[in-house]
């Protein structure tokens, strides 16, 4: 397939935002019938390149051609009409509309200007059947899970006879089975001659599906490679631009010694905590210096557990106490006052205040804990912020930039810093590494280890089992909104056993504490 000429080329693309040089003289090309992975760390410019391509942003310099002709799209609609469709990282559909409408809105089948609802639903069902999805197409999209919404987004994208399909981190919220299904669809589309631009942070996925890889770093092109000619190890090096020893350490399967609880009272004591419709009552104790991992499939109730412990959702069963004797935690304010930090999974909606600067975002929690009448002196702020910008290598390292201008991974680090500044005793991390690159991921993992060595208790939630196993002393397994087991992370515990527990819902005998 490589003999023919590229369907899409981008040459000399540059783009600058206030304070950030997002793209600098980047070239990119895409052949028909290939899956082309665009790789790079957070802030490398992947999302910007895609937005330039689809006309969301204008360019400062550079030329885009489609089918040999120069194009300059003014927006996604025009791009889609020309055959360049995009599925973005966050599902960008309207959850209030029906599934069928989300597939067809903007190009609904019509007769004399009137939308033909029956025809639209029928075609939506056919199209979704092609993707092996059996949905009630007249139900509102919001009643389905994120994974299903993502598939609907893809259905929408491929319906417009696309020549080029851009998938911007489509897998970040999918579980393994759903990823396999997505890949099957991608191969099917590729074999039909569609050029697929695929952005992901999962290296395994790149090697599972991509024919060709383009690597960006700090807004510049590093190079374009055929997948079989680029070993995984060199890919990571090219993305990071240096040989990081953290990465090697990542590969070592270091088992974490179980913290000996002894007679010591637990820091967190959740007793029969539960909320109807969210999660069945569970008991969980976390000691100082202990990392407890929460494993389970998407929607198994992991986040709900975290929210209950933090008091963000009101429990209708049981209670949670910190440090034994004190009053139970009922709301986030009490939780924060008693030294709990919560890094939300949904950083865009629940964590980051995009209009505020990096500095302001970081000191929010600390300021809240001190009370608004006692402002933190500016010098102290600057000092704290500088320390964490450095420690977490937040880029660009400018504390006064609005957080909105940072990439997703760096926003995540800012959010993390916000809680670290308050020096919490329990830190709840909900999917802290989702959608961020290997380098940042390694840094965050290393940080978790350091923090727990320093005596902080951590509740670590992640969809990636390897990550959970690498960091946790103990793994609590969620299944169907129930905590089915708590497993000590000793020599006998591996991903396979956790998977089996998730799959079968091991009986309660497995509960170790």
């Amino acid at each position, binding site marked *: 397939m490589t003999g023919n000429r590229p369907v899409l080329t981008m040459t000399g693309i540059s783009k600058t935002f206030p304070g950030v040089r997002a793209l600098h003289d980047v070239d990119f090309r895409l052949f028909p019938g290939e899956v082309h992975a665009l790789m790079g760390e957070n802030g490398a410019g992947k999302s910007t390149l895609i937005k330039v391509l689809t006309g969301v942003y204008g360019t400062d310099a550079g030329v885009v051609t489609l089918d040999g002709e120069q194009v300059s799209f003014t*927006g996604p609609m025009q791009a889609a009409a020309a055959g360049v469709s*995009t599925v973005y990282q966050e599902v960008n559909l309207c959850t209030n*509309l029906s599934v069928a409408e989300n597939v067809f809105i*903007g190009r609904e089948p019509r007769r004399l200007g009137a939308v033909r609802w029956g025809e639209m639903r029928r075609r939506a069902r056919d199209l979704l059947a092609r993707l092996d999805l059996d949905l009630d197409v007249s139900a509102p999209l919001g*009643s389905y899970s994120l994974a*299903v919404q993502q598939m609907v987004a893809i259905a929408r994208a491929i319906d417009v006879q696309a020549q080029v399909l851009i998938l911007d981190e489509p897998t970040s919220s999918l579980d393994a089975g759903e990823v396999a299904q997505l890949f099957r669809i991608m191969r099917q589309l590729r074999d039909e001659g569609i050029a697929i631009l695929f952005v992901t942070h999962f290296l395994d996925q790149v090697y599972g599906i991509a024919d060709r890889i383009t690597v960006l770093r700090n807004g510049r092109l590093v190079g374009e490679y055929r997948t079989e000619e680029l070993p995984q190890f060199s890919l990571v090096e090219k993305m990071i631009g240096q040989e990081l020893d953290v990465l090697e350490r990542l590969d070592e399967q270091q088992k974490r010694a179980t913290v000996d609880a002894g007679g010591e009272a637990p820091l967190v004591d959740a007793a029969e905590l539960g909320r109807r419709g969210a999660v069945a009552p569970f008991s969980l104790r976390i000691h100082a210096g202990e990392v407890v991992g929460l494993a389970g499939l998407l929607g198994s109730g992991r986040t709900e557990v975290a929210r209950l412990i933090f008091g963000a959702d009101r429990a209708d069963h049981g209670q949670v106490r910190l440090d034994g004797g004190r009053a139970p935690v009922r709301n986030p304010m009490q939780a924060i006052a008693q030294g709990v930090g919560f890094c939300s999974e949904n950083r865009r909606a629940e964590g980051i205040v995009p209009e505020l600067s990096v500095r302001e975002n970081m000191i929010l929690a600390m300021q809240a804990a001190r009370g608004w009448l006692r402002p933190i002196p500016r010098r102290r702020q600057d000092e704290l912020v500088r320390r964490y910008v450095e420690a977490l290598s937040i880029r660009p390292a400018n504390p006064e930039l609005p957080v909105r201008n940072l990439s997703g991974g760096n926003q995540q680090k800012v959010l993390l810093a916000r809680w670290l500044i308050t020096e919490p005793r329990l830190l709840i991390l909900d999917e802290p590494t989702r959608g961020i690159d290997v380098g940042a991921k390694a840094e965050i993992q290393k940080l978790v280890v350091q923090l727990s060595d320093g005596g902080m208790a951590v509740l670590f939630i992640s969809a990636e089992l390897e990550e959970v196993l690498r960091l946790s002393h103990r793994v609590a397994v969620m299944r169907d909104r129930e905590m089915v087991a708590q497993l000590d992370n000793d020599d006998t515990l591996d991903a396979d056993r956790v998977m089996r527990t998730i799959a079968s819902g091991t009986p309660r005998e497995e509960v170790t504490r």
Partner: protein
Amino acid sequence: MSSTSLTTGRSWRPSLPRRHVPVLATLALLLVMYGIGVSQYRAFSNVQVVFNVFIDNGFLLVVAVGMTFVILTGGIDLSVGSVVAMTAMVSASLLRDGLPAALVLVIALLIGPTLGFLMGCAIHFFEIQPFIVTLAGMFFARGMCTFISDSSISITDGFWTSMSQQRIGDPAGNFVSISVLIAFAVVLIAAYVLAYTRFGRNVYAVGGNAQSALLMGLPVARTRIAVYTISGLCSAIGGILLSFYTLSGAPLIAVGMELDVIAAVVIGGTVLTGGSGYVFGTVLGVLVLGVIQTLITFDGSLNSWWTKIVIGGLLFAFILLQRLIGIRFK
């Protein structure tokens, strides 16, 4: 494994379509209130009572339809009451100056949409909150009323008086005014536009998630500007209907009407944050307000301010209802 997990995504959710719950609640409320009226007062069961509700609130209904478009996109239009008054004032003063009725109608029907268009542009292109832009529009239009005349101007034009007095009735003697028919036409057109045209669906999409709508390639700018223009047009029609009804233009008429209209739309089940609601619900919302007024009139002993108190209570109850539904289905 994958296909089963995908299809079970919503299995634990209740099956009642939540979009219909607020409208059904309003319908139930309306029936209950009507039932109360009929059981308390013998004359209440007269069909003319219902017709009178429409006659008295025809202009409110038309304006509320326009407001429904705006609120469906997640916006708000505070200028409607003033635009209604301004349209009536302009009509009255131009007629007094001897302009032909047809020309006056055209001019009057152009002012509202033009103002709406300008406000829509300001809201979209300068990213200013609709609240503040339409508040400015409200002051501007109200000011224009007093600028035209600081006292009321009566209308003696033949066309206007015939529209005012024309009765369309059945053999039993029940009747409605032309205004009611115009209001029905507006309702039907609006319901059709919202349900069956691309523009209508875009209105829902923008209200659901404007950012997504943009990325799906929908004409967000055009849609936003259009809804304020439509609201302006509906206010202008409402102003004309009001001038048919009162046969005058007064600078201080329809003060605070925008709030009644918003209340009617919300009681009709349209969610203030946008993306969910129906024109049919708005009709019910207006009827609820009208029936409350009628009940209080029938009672005779109650101060008319009771209307406001009841509306206040209902509004609160309905916002609470929307909220509860929203939380339950989140």
